[in-house]
């Protein structure tokens, strides 16, 4: 059993409270990604789970046991750090074997286990090397190997990829994903990169300022963001936010367009309409935005266009081969079902 639960977790450093009572249930074998802007408390949560810090309040339960008072080593977890924390003076073999030092196994069994893990990670040839002779990706793999070798119930990853360059990052995230599919342990993965979150997670936990904003599958948080924060955070480029108000049961936008969304809301209520760049494109539908193209960013198969309108700039996607010219006046439209409606004051999703 390797399910994990946190209940009303509060963490205070001296007087500043950095976690305000968060709760979460993670199932056995789930791959959960914590994502959020810098300083929102992701690492803190992870460190509480690992037992590197004491919780101020609340409970952490791993495999049905309350572990608040257990030492990290007794929690049946393993952790991979951002800077890998692999020891520069030890060979890869020793580094990986470090996690087994306290294990009650014969020496031969330990060696066999190290070889097995190295095999899984494709590092058998590198076992005799020192970390300084490894590339960034290989070091990352060693760090993972050291965590794997103990076969913990829960893996904790704290931004393990952020020291790698873009190409390697893409590759490593695929490897971790595959690894998870193979070994099936529970994984808690922290990142501030939403692409990483989207591509890896079974479920994403989006945090902000010590609160959980939304928990859901990638599809859920992308298609049904709980509030403007989540909507803006997930997806790149960010969702465009247009302000509007309810008028005669319809939605009136700044461009003057009235949309019938079948909403039942108080007359005059201020709302925010969100529309993702990939749903917004030059076309003949109801004009959400009208204005001149200010910048074009060709991405090859498509082109991002930036359109200035009503003092703000929205991003839309146009065809890659015949995008509008800079300066050209365009009308941007989107299918009504792709629009997200939020309360203008609280930011909570209304639909």
């Amino acid at each position, binding site marked *: 059993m390797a399910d994990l639960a946190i209940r009303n977790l509060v963490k205070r450093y001296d007087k500043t409270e950095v976690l305000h009572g968060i709760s979460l249930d993670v199932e056995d074998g789930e791959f959960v990604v914590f994502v959020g802007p810098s300083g929102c408390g992701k690492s803190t949560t992870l460190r509480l789970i690992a*037992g590197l810090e004491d919780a101020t309040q609340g409970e952490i339960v791993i495999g049905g046991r309350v572990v608040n008072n257990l030492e990290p080593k007794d929690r049946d977890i393993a952790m991979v750090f951002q*800077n890998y924390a692999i020891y520069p003076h030890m060979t890869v073999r020793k580094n990986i074997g470090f996690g087994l030092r306290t294990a009650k196994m014969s020496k031969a069994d330990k060696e066999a286990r190290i070889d097995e893990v190295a095999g899984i990670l494709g590092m058998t040839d590198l076992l005799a090397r020192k970390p300084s002779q490894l590339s960034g990706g290989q070091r990352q793999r060693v760090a993972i190997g050291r965590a794997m070798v*103990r076969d913990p119930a829960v893996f904790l990853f704290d931004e393990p990829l952020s020291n790698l360059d873009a190409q390697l990052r893409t590759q490593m995230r695929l490897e971790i994903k595959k690894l998870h599919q193979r070994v099936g342990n529970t994984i808690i993965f922290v990142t501030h990169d939403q692409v990483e979150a989207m591509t890896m997670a079974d479920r994403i936990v989006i945090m902000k300022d010590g609160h959980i904003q939304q928990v859901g599958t990638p599809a859920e948080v992308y298609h049904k963001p709980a509030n403007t924060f989540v909507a803006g955070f997930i997806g790149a480029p960010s969702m465009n936010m247009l302000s509007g108000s309810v008028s005669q049961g319809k939605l009136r936008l700044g461009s003057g367009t009235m949309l019938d969304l079948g909403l039942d809301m108080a007359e005059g209520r201020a709302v925010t309409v969100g529309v993702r760049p990939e749903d917004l494109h030059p076309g003949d539908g109801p004009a959400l935005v009208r204005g001149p193209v200010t910048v074009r960013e060709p991405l090859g198969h498509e082109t991002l266009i930036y359109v200035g309108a009503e003092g703000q700039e929205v991003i839309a996607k146009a065809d890659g081969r015949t995008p509008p010219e800079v300066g050209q006046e365009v009308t941007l439209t989107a299918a009504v079902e792709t629009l997200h409606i939020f309360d203008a004051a609280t930011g909570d999703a209304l639909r």
Partner: protein
Amino acid sequence: MYRNLTIRQKQIVWAWAFLAIPILFYTVIRFYPTGNAILISFQDWNLLGDRTWTGFDNYQTLFADPVFWKVFRNTFVYLLIGTPVSLIISFVIAYHLDQVRFMHGFLRMLYFLPFMTSAVAMAWVWRWFYQPVPVGLFNNALASMGIPQFPFLQSTTWALPSVLAPAVWAGLGFQVIIFMAGLRAIPRSYYEAARIDGVSWWTVLWEITLPLLKPTIVFIVVFSSIGFLRIFDHVFNMTTNNPGGPLNSTKPLVLMIYETAFSAFDMGYAAAQTVVLFLVLLVVSLIQLRILRDS
């Protein structure tokens, strides 16, 4: 002319311009006198008279002098006891001090204070501590417990360690600071990873902390070795009347040099001794660097 140089050539010009004064300084203030001293080591010169060329006479006398060999041995005893002992003590202090928050700055200052106080004055205080009853602090304590007197400075066996102790004491603060800096530079995540792996603090110490401190240790070993090989102030001040302790049991090479030069005024002989010291320093440092850097 300068304008037509390539970028790289301009850089070279700058580099040498920056180095001009220092190179002049080192040449005139260090290398030339060194050469001079080596020259003198082949001469007979009592400082007052003429210098006469004597070839290797000074060296022959030196190697035939039993006092020299005694002193040579002492010098290495200082090195071989002083370096490891000070290394271990300062590490232990730094290791624990590093983990203490409460009044940290104050504690650190306590340990650093001896490094800042006059070596001469301190050597005398220590000398008083070592006296037999009724003066000495240590022997008075022993006497009050009914334990026999300990002949610190009056013994051919114990005089050297007794002289070494204040030298170690005085340098401890510096080494503690260097060690603390070394400890501070080890990323915390190394320790956290080890905590999660559940290894004992002993393993952490031996397999993580110490190996990662290696550059610091190399630095301290090399510099403290040079210090112990050149020990003088403490020995000189703790045994002023009988320089070098009972039957030369504490006399280090530098003291012998000092005496030869400024009591016997046998400059050539003294210079020969400095040349030997120079070679010892060189060889010891190179060996240490090699041993500690590889592996």
